[in-house]
């Protein structure tokens, strides 16, 4: 801008005549401005197609692909990103971007990402000296040393960077099919719109690789409302779920990640395809839909009483509404129930969970007392007084009694049953435990319980008895006499040593600690006695739980 143009703007001269002479004193009459026409919607500024005046052809060199992409993003528009020419090669195998802009602008833009400007001269690229209108005579690079690369290669090499998560109005989730129903149910609980469809993912950079089929789940809150941030964060933590934001119909980018190339510029690259861009944890892919989007509500299973029936031939709808329905005996089932402050008394494990138990419990206090009752494919883990810890594996159970009757945490019986009814319907004794599950019940033989530490403790090593030399000599003499068929004469000291050794062996096998005693009382239903034992041995938490059980049974 010239210094003159920074002054006040002069009024334009009237067309076809000379400019009127200003009045004396330089004062001009003030007149009301003409009414402004109604403002029309302002169209976004058109991209500049015409090269800038004074533009020269130059090459910008960068050390990294992300720096080259940042330079491409700053270039004046008009040219589709996919047609931007990129080169690679020269010293340091750098990234080169030819451009046609003014030398001053190029110097400024390149300096942002610590690049260099080169000017072509006779088949060579001469490094710009940084001032003036011409290149210096310094370092040169032959044009034939450079090879063409695509913008997609730059995007691939540059990768994605992470930024602060922004609120999402729509999230596109790519996941295996078995996760769809659970996430859909949670999203519907939050009054979100859910659609899903099967899609095919083809490798973006290696198109020959086999395609992978998965599901696309779209979540939206409707209108301008954002999705709950806690839900998005929770979904993002799931290991098999890729949470994407929709940049355009042709581009999905992992939530809270971005490319060095701006989103809208990147969205022009796929053309008619749809691309999924994600970091190396998930990978990038072309997305091909395999079906139309379906409403997620169709994945929610209705209860038995919602099945469709034929229209009644005898009565009209009005009559049918007035007729008393036949009484239906309620069936004892489990229904989800809200509960808080309920302690975990046991856990139901499968075979895969058993493999994780040593890593979880080894070295923990719970390993001292926990017992495992193996079943066919489900196994019961419990402890005297209850586990009282929520393990990250298995299904947590809570005791409801009477006897050893357990329910999954978060469920209750429907209809509610008193203790006598529960005892009659699900009888247990000191040797059995019953676990009620939705639609089934499991019974375990508590006599087969084993300490949980047997899962990771192998057999004990062979013990070598170290007896005094004198006793050893006596034993050798005894052995010799037995071999000769003579009546053995036991030395006075050796017999007592042998007795001590074997007494130690037998005693070790028959030792019972207070845990067994307390558990026996608990299984027999004497919770107060079991609680007293736990209290005696400084375990007030389990004592409290057992006192509570005793009190509940007294009701």
């Amino acid at each position, binding site marked *: 801008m010239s210094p003159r143009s920074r002054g006040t703007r002069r009024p334009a001269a009237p067309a076809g005549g000379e400019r009127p002479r200003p009045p004396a004193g330089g004062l001009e009459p003030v007149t009301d401005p003409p009414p402004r026409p109604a403002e029309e919607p302002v169209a976004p500024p058109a991209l500049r197609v015409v090269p800038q005046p004074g533009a020269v052809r130059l090459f910008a060199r960068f050390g990294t692909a992300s720096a080259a992409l940042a330079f491409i993003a700053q270039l004046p528009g008009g040219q589709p990103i996919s047609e931007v020419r990129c080169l690679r090669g020269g010293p340091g195998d750098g990234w080169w971007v030819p451009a046609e802009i003014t030398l001053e602008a190029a110097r400024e833009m390149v300096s942002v990402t610590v690049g260099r400007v080169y000017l072509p001269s006779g088949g060579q690229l001469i490094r710009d000296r940084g001032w003036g209108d011409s290149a210096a005579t310094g370092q040169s690079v032959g044009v034939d040393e450079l090879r063409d690369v695509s913008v997609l290669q730059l995007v691939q090499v540059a990768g994605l960077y992470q930024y602060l998560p922004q609120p999402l109005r729509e999230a596109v989730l790519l996941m295996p099919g078995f996760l769809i129903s659970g996430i859909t149910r949670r999203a519907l609980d939050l009054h979100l719109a859910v659609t899903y469809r099967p899609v095919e993912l083809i490798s973006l950079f290696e198109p020959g690789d086999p395609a992978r089929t998965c599901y696309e789940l779209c979540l939206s809150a409707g209108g301008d409302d954002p999705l709950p941030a806690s839900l998005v964060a929770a979904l993002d933590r799931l290991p098999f779920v890729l949470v994407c934001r929709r940049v355009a119909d042709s581009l999905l980018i992992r939530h809270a990640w971005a490319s060095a190339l701006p989103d809208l510029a990147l969205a022009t690259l796929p053309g008619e395809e749809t691309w999924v861009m994600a970091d190396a944890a998930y990978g990038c892919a072309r997305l091909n839909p395999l079906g139309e989007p379906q409403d997620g509500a169709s994945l929610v299973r209705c209860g038995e009483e919602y099945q469709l029936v034929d229209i009644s031939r005898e009565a009209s709808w009005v009559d049918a509404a007035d007729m008393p329905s036949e009484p239906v005996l309620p069936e004892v089932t489990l229904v989800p129930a809200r509960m808080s402050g*309920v302690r975990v008394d046991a856990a139901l494990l499968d075979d895969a969970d058993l493999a994780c138990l040593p890593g979880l419990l080894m070295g923990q206090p719970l390993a001292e007392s926990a017992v495992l009752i193996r079943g066919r494919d489900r196994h019961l883990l419990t402890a005297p007084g209850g586990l009282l810890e929520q393990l990250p594996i298995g299904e947590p159970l809570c005791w*409801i009694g009477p006897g050893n009757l357990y329910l999954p945490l978060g469920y209750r*019986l429907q209809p509610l049953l008193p203790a006598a009814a529960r005892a009659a319907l699900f009888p247990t004794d000191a040797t059995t435990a019953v676990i009620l599950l939705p639609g089934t019940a499991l019974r375990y033989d508590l006599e087969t319980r084993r300490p949980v530490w047997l899962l990771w403790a192998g057999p004990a090593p062979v013990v070598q008895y170290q007896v005094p030399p004198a006793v050893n000599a006596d034993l050798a003499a005894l052995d010799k006499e037995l071999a000769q068929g003579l009546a053995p004469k036991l030395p006075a000291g050796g017999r007592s040593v042998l007795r001590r050794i074997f007494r130690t062996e037998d005693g070790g096998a028959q030792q019972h600690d207070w845990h067994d005693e307390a558990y026996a009382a608990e299984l027999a239903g004497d919770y107060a006695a079991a609680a007293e034992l736990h209290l005696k041995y400084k375990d*007030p938490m389990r004592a*409290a739980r057992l*006192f*509570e059980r005793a*009190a509940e049974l*007294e009701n």
Partner: protein
Amino acid sequence: MMSETTGRNGTRMANAGLYVRAADCYRHAGLVGEAVRCYRLAGAHRTAGDLNTSLGQYREAAVDYQNSGMPELAAWLLVHHAHDPAAARAVLTPLISVHVHGTENPAAAAEAGLRRRLVLARCAVAEGAALDSVLPVIEAACTELADPTIPRDRFVDEWAVALAEHAQRYDQVALVFAASMRARRPGAAQRWSQWADRVLHTNLILPVVPTAARRGGRD
């Protein structure tokens, strides 16, 4: 599971001892929330209220005190600690209507009446009433505390001090403590010194109150 086994108050009394044992064990294990739950199941609402107060859960404590027949204490917690004078008035309103109909013991009503007046005065101050409006009820409290024939009501003593302190009338605080000392309430001088140390950051030197025998001899 709670929903399966709890319900009738009559049968719950039989196992209150077990619930109290469970609550004591939970307290011993450091699980105060569980202990409160068990104390409530045992019907020991006063203990549950004390535990909730120690945890700073004044609204929960107010519910417990109300269930244990101490509505004035519940209302005081609501207005003085939870800063909710409307809830405190809601606790006291049915009691005031009962008092009007004359169904209470007159002696107990008089004692409870002074507590209620203190709570209502605290409510008025919390709602923006003039600070001097507390003077009549503090004067009544001083009169009661100065009478050695009336057993000490700990709540009247503490609430009158708190009310005067909240109204920034430290002179009235001194009058309340002085009334207690004149009636030879146990620990009155110590409480006054502790208050002066906490609020005024000064050591209080109190004169020795002469005994009745000395007073009689001097007279």
